[in-house]
């Protein structure tokens, strides 16, 4: 088949960028990585990109296709070529470009190192026996353990774009992999460290990381698990944690968010006093609902009673989020009708879907 690609070339020494178009003849089963190999082999030996395993294990070939981070070895090009679409290939985002499609991973590795990505088992000697970890205990960190550190999640992280010091989805998911490990003895120290500025509470919940991860790690969910566990351990002095706690207080007192009190409860009285002028501007347009009389939901006593009940259920901290994954995991592997879908990693349903112009993909109906 004939495959055409536009590739953003970049020469760091000269600082020059150029969008070049290439057209090749490739086998029908060719992936994007295969196509790049053919370009390099036959048309332009100076094209630079990373690769190694060619089977979604090594995490080397992360790059963007039509603006979305993918593993080049994951994306089959057949449908794209058939549609006559010429995809734009570029380097991943949020990392400095070295040459063409190669990014400097040093900032990425620095953040991975910053979360202490190794087990801290203490010095307990199991004697003649082993440290036994049960299957449910391992299940709690199954998803986080799947990370191949390709950087696709980091590429499109909206918080990191705005704050390059943000630890980011890959490093924090790695952190959860150890916080949730039954053998680790440094959980509290880890949670304290991850709760510092540029950590857990800097995630903007854009969910690009979950969307881009080729391995199903769902880093945003890992970050939520860290938040839940930190709060369970009483590590809750960050404004982000206080913000989250106010929603709980609101739900069990009035049912609805006590919106006007959210600012002082999050930021503290002193800092929120600086917001008075801003708040007055909002007040003129009814954007500051008066806290009195409170807006109370009907039968709010039920919500209060539920709060008391769940305190005894033992599903607190990250366990409370892990329990949701039993059902949600099926979304990855089954179609909406509960039957195992014939859905290989490269076929229909692989993500991101190649962009096929003119295809009506959005006439709706939901995922059910």
């Amino acid at each position, binding site marked *: 088949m004939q495959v055409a690609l536009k590739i953003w070339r970049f020469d760091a020494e000269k600082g020059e960028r150029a969008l070049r178009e290439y057209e090749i003849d490739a086998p029908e089963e060719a992936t994007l990585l295969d196509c790049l190999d053919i370009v390099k082999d036959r048309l332009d030996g100076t094209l630079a990109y990373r690769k190694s395993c060619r089977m979604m294990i090594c995490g080397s070939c992360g790059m963007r296709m039509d603006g979305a981070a993918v593993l080049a070895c994951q994306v089959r090009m057949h449908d794209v070529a058939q549609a006559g679409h010429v995809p734009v290939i570029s380097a991943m985002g949020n990392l400095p470009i070295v040459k063409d499609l190669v990014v400097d991973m040093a900032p990425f590795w620095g953040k991975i190192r910053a979360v202490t990505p190794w087990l801290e088992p203490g010095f307990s000697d199991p004697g003649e026996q082993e440290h036994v970890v049960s299957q449910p205990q391992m299940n709690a960190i199954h998803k986080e353990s799947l990370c191949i550190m390709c950087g696709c999640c980091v590429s499109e992280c909206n918080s990191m774009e705005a704050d390059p010091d943000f630890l980011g989805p890959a490093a924090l998911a790695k952190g959860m992999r150890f916080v949730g490990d039954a053998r680790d003895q440094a959980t509290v120290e880890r949670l304290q460290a991850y709760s510092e500025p540029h950590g857990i509470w800097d995630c*903007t919940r854009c969910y690009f990381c979950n*969307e881009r991860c080729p391995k199903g790690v769902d880093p945003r969910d890992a970050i939520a698990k860290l938040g839940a566990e930190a709060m369970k351990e009483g590590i809750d002095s960050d404004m982000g944690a206080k913000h989250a706690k106010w929603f709980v207080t609101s739900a069990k007192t009035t049912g609805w968010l006590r*919106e006007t009190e959210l600012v002082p409860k999050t930021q503290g009285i002193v800092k929120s006093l600086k917001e008075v002028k801003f708040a007055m501007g909002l007040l003129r347009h009814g*954007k500051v609902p008066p806290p009195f009389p409170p807006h109370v939901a009907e039968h709010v006593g039920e919500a209060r009673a539920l709060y008391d009940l769940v305190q005894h259920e033992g599903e607190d901290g990250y366990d*409370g989020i892990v329990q949701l994954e039993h059902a949600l995991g099926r979304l990855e592997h089954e179609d909406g009708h509960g039957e195992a879908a014939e859905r290989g990693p490269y076929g229909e349903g692989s993500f991101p879907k190649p962009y096929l112009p003119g295809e009506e993909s*959005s006439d709706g109906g939901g*995922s059910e």
Partner: protein
Amino acid sequence: MRTVAYYKGCLASLSAKELDISTQALAPKVGLELIELEAVTCCGAGDIHEAEPDYYLHLNARILAYAEETGADTLMTVCNVCTLNLRQANHALQGDPALLERVNRNLTKVGVPAYSGGVEVMHFLWLVAAGEGYELLKGAAHRGLKGLKIAPFYGCQILRPSKLLGFEDPDRPSSLERIIEACGGEAIDYPAKIKCCGFPIIQAREETALAELIQPIEQAKEAGADAMVTPCPLCHLSLDAWQSKLKAQTGKDFQLPILHLSQLVGVAAGLADSELKFKRHVVSVAPVTDKLAV
């Protein structure tokens, strides 16, 4: 008429009342009969999911149970964050009988009807961007938008994670564009339309949030937008109310009017001033109303 249970969520009850008022006024024109849920609480907005995940699950199960009790098969939301939180809880309960049983045991203990898993959570956008709702919308929007240039802003949690939302391609969505054009407006395109507005961290990390917020506003202005439309009241609040902070920080006074989806369709469908409530916006909507001579 399609009868749906209506969950308006916190903001439409409080600081974004204009969203609730315009939605209720517009609904019959697009074939929706709304049964408003009264005995429900906040969905937790992602915050209770993080602070007390099991409580989050129970609160959302309670909302779903009361929606099911109305006899409707659809729970309609008007907020991205409510949509994701409710759909996530719903999927977890529908797909895990043991979990559903445990939660139902607790619900019934406190007097809430048990939930059988028979409700689908749908955002208002999805109900009017496809099928019969879309056909009715085209007829209802008779007054048109006179070619106004409208920037669609989706917000995150109506697109991602797509395995939970799944209405449309999360990278190349087109529902808002289709609605803008059906209403007689011109949809403009810009890269940040699927990115984050920064709202979830706007109080805890304002600097980071503002660096996110400026992108869609600046890009939409550069692309010539007269106004922006969003299906999420949280996006609306940051895009509308925090524009003044962008001005203080960058010196740029964008003055970009931000419309709720129900207001955009509503103004094209000829809703009255008292139903649109544009005076509740911080950034003046005059550029829109002047052009349409509302």
